């Protein structure tokens, strides 16, 4: 019979423990019961400041547990009886345990400043805290200068300042120590960090503290110990954390001198059936406030519960993060506390970068380092801590060009989030289990935590001789993106000219459609003009979707899913007259199946005459912009989602791309249009629109991620213009937007910097290219109907144009015609 594990607390570490145990406990040895104080399941607290981008709690959600895990929310454990081995909750539930894990986390430390309990003073730890800060800011709206004070200039304090900035406030950061991020960053790095963040409307006050906070009407006034007085909308405390060990204290378990449940290196308390992990645990006299060591502890306990002998591997306090857009990394002995340690610094005030490595007294061993402004070297330096340096230490941080290629030893930990070594990864590569970064992620978990090691994964693939060939096929050595640039810059307009100059052979079913798509993206006329017709896959060649019996389906465009009864009747009549099987699609359109090649133009003629046009269901192109009914009808709607969906669909219709593009617009946060499952999805807010990018359904479903929020329609359209054109130009063949973004160095942040902040200076060009597309759009069906030469190719047989294909036959199912399966006796009998 299964034994019962009770987990107290469902934060990130508790969640990780449950996931790790469920992953490994394949024989069901443990029943898991989790009691959580918060009313929502564990979420990504590390990313808490991003909550202000969307105010959608689900954006921070972690992967849910399976239904076999009993997760009791909003019911904290109040008592532990270690003799009877039971816990009791606030609601009075009593639960027996065979093993108990305390994962109660920490609470924010609030320094004893007079006035700290006034309305408008908040801590920064939970979604509810941020909701509270938001309410305070909203109530103070329109009174005086918009400013907030954050007490604490550490990692969390800067995150809180970022959140305040996201709410439109000018943050003051007050740090008692002499510099920002005193734990992670040294004096030189902190000086640069201060300079960089002050450019972002932050005011940094170091070496001082708040001596009092007072309220006067709607305003808060804070007096600092250096005499300064600040006029504020809100005050946020983020001056550190304290372990929540009261439950352990009450049940007689030992706690450390500075708090925390004392555990051994198996994360076990003096009671062999009780463990403590994460920020509530004191291990080796230390309480760790980072998620990384907490995750390590969760893994150790999961292993121990299943009879393993894992011990805490030691905490890697290395950190790499982007604070307010500034890269900061700290690793190993960042403060050179090792005896005789030497520091080598490259401080480039002009470029805005600071890099320091700490080495042993003989300059042979890397001990640690600090990087500010540019942390690109972090993934290759961190695993080298404690190891010999090849050559001169300054080479490690020399500006690009002078840097040396670092060969990592086999046992170096590449992914510190999941403790994956270089050897683990190279073994998997050599065993043929993976040949690209997504493959490595799937089979080793490396790169799936903070993601900072992803550039190193690419290097390891190259080191292992896995050719990351970007050649399109045997006929071209170029990637699709390279070919796009070649076509764009040389102005070549035919496949024959392109392959003669830049490729070899006669092409194939990979490169021909890819080049056809590029030519179409550059709007070089109808997709069936001249030689282009021979490049197209059959769907694009016949402007319809081929089905299993060789017939095609026809999808007219119904922008935004809005259609008049008259047009609906026309579709019905056409379907009836041609005996077409009719089905509503997932994209709010109507699909008409079973048309033969020679019927297609006649069907289009009827549709076009009634005001329809091609819906491009056949193309690697924009498909549909789905919408909910929006504010016109819906009592919950806050914007006109149908109107926007129609505007977007008409703007981007016919845009050829590396893969199909789907979109949707929801009129409120209820998200009835399922916009987050689309390549670009828009969700209305009270103030405008939120734009999400990189979602898809299909084999590997992904939720789109927030790119910009609360923008007006004009801004939204501008950003979507840039997004789509950048995708069209740079993605690989058949790469959806999700994997395109994932494959970028820097992912979504990189995308944002290019198309929102215009870091490459190409946005005007992208917008101009989209303007050309919008201007030159023409219906492809009409283009065939108006051209006798194109029309002549829509015949069943070159020697018998009017004769139907004798292999095609239909039977009836549920009142409609469906294909007779090919190769079955019925076919032979006819």
């Amino acid at each position: 019979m299964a034994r019962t594990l009770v987990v107290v607390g469902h934060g990130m570490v508790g969640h990780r423990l449950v996931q790790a145990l469920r992953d490994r406990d394949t024989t069901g040895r443990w029943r898991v019961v989790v009691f959580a104080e918060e009313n929502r399941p564990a979420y990504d607290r590390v990313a808490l400041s991003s909550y202000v981008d969307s105010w959608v709690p689900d954006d921070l959600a972690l992967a849910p547990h399976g239904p076999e895990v009993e997760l009791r929310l909003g019911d904290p454990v109040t008592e532990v009886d270690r003799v009877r081995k039971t816990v009791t909750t606030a609601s009075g539930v009593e639960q027996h345990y065979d093993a108990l894990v305390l994962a109660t986390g920490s609470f924010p430390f609030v320094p004893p400043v007079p006035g700290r309990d006034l309305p408008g003073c908040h801590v920064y730890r939970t979604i509810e805290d941020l909701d509270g800060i938001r309410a305070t800011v909203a109530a103070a709206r329109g009174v005086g200068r918009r400013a907030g004070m954050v007490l604490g200039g550490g990692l969390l304090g800067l995150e809180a300042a970022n959140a305040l900035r996201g709410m439109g406030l000018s943050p003051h950061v007050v740090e008692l120590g002499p510099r920002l991020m005193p734990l992670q960053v040294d004096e030189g790095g902190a000086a640069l960090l201060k300079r960089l963040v002050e450019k972002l409307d932050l005011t940094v006050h170091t070496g001082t503290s708040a001596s009092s906070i007072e309220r006067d009407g709607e305003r808060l006034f804070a007096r600092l110990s250096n005499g300064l007085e600040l006029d504020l909308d809100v005050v946020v405390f983020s001056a550190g954390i304290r372990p929540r060990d009261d439950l352990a204290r009450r049940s007689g378990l030992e706690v450390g001198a500075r708090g925390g449940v004392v555990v051994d290196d198996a994360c076990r308390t003096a009671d062999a059936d009780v463990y403590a992990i994460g920020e509530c645990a004191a291990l080796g006299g230390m309480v760790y406030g980072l998620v990384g060591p907490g995750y390590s502890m969760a893994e150790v306990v999961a292993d121990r519960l299943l009879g393993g002998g894992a011990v805490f591997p030691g905490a890697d306090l290395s950190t790499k993060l982007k604070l307010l857009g500034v890269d900061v990394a700290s690793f190993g002995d960042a403060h050179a506390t090792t005896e005789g340690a030497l520091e080598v610094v490259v401080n480039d005030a002009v470029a805005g970068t600071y890099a320091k490595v700490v080495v042993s007294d003989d300059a042979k061993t890397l001990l640690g380092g600090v990087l500010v402004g540019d942390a690109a070297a972090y993934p290759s330096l961190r695993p080298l801590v404690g190891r010999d340096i090849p050559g001169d230490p300054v080479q490690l941080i020399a500006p690009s060009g002078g840097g040396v290629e670092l060969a990592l030893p086999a046992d170096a930990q590449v992914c510190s989030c999941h403790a994956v070594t270089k050897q683990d990864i190279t073994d998997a590569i050599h065993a043929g289990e993976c040949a690209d970064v997504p493959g490595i992620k799937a089979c080793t978990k490396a790169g799936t935590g903070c993601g900072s090691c992803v550039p190193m994964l690419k290097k390891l693939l190259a080191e292992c001789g896995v050719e990351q060939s970007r050649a399109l096929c045997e006929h071209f050595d170029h990637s699709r993106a390279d070919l796009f640039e070649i076509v764009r810059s040389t102005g070549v307009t035919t496949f024959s000219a392109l392959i003669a100059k830049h490729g070899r052979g006669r092409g194939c079913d990979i490169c021909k459609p890819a080049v056809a798509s590029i030519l179409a993206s550059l709007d070089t006329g109808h997709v069936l003009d001249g030689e282009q017709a021979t490049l197209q896959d059959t769907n694009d060649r016949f402007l319809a979707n081929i089905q299993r019996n060789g017939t095609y389906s026809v999808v007219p465009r119904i922008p935004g899913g809005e259609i008049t009864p008259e047009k609906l009747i026309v579709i019905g009549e056409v379907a009836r007259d041609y005996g077409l099987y009719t089905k509503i699609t997932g994209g709010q359109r109507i699909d008409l199946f079973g048309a033969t090649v020679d019927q297609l133009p006649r069907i289009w003629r009827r549709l076009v005459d009634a005001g329809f046009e091609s819906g491009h269901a056949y193309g690697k192109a924009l498909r549909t912009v789905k919408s909910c009914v929006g504010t016109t009808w819906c009592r919950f709607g806050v914007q006109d989602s149908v109107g926007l969906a129609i505007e977007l669909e008409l703007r981007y219709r016919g845009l050829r791309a590396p893969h199909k593009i789907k979109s949707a617009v929801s009129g409120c946060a209820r998200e009835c249009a399922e916009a987050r499952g689309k390549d670009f999805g828009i969700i209305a807010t009270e103030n405008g629109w939120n734009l999400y990018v990189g979602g898809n359904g299909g084999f590997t479903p992904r939720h789109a991620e927030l790119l910009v929020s609360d923008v007006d329609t004009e801004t939204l359209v501008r950003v979507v213009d840039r997004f789509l054109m950048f995708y069209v130009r740079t993605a690989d063949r058949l790469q959806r937007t999700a994997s395109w973004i994932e494959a970028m160095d820097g992912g979504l942040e990189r995308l944002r910097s290019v198309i929102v902040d215009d870091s490459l200076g190409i946005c005007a060009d992208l917008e101009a290219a989209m303007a050309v597309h919008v201007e030159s759009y023409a219906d492809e069906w009409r283009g065939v109907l108006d051209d006798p030469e194109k029309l002549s190719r829509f015949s069943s047989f070159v020697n018998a144009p009017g004769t139907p294909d004798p292999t095609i036959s239909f039977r009836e199912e549920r009142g409609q015609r469906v294909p007779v399966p090919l190769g079955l006796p019925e076919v032979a009998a006819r």
Partner: protein
Amino acid sequence: MTAVVELTWTSVCALSALQPEAGVAVLLPDASQVALFRTFDGALHAVDNIDPFSGAAVLSRGIVGDRGGVAVVASPIYKQAFDLTTGACLDDPAVSIAVHEVRVLDDVVQVRCP
């Protein structure tokens, strides 16, 4: 007894009606179908039009090109490539399709068939 299969030439279309690398379907007197291609170098090829992997009569609508210099057509249904000269499937050695003789007589393309 020896069965004698008589092969005859069927006139199909004018040579000028064949666009390079764009196939057409041909209906033969016995109701079977041939996919007819004119490759970039001017050569003519005729193969069965029925794709053996799907049973659909669609090979004339496949993309024509080459694999390692061998002229091929790729089925539009599941993308297997067939050697236009031999009929062999390059993706599955166990599968092949029939090839038919083609000639041009007074600018008229003819296919030889039962």
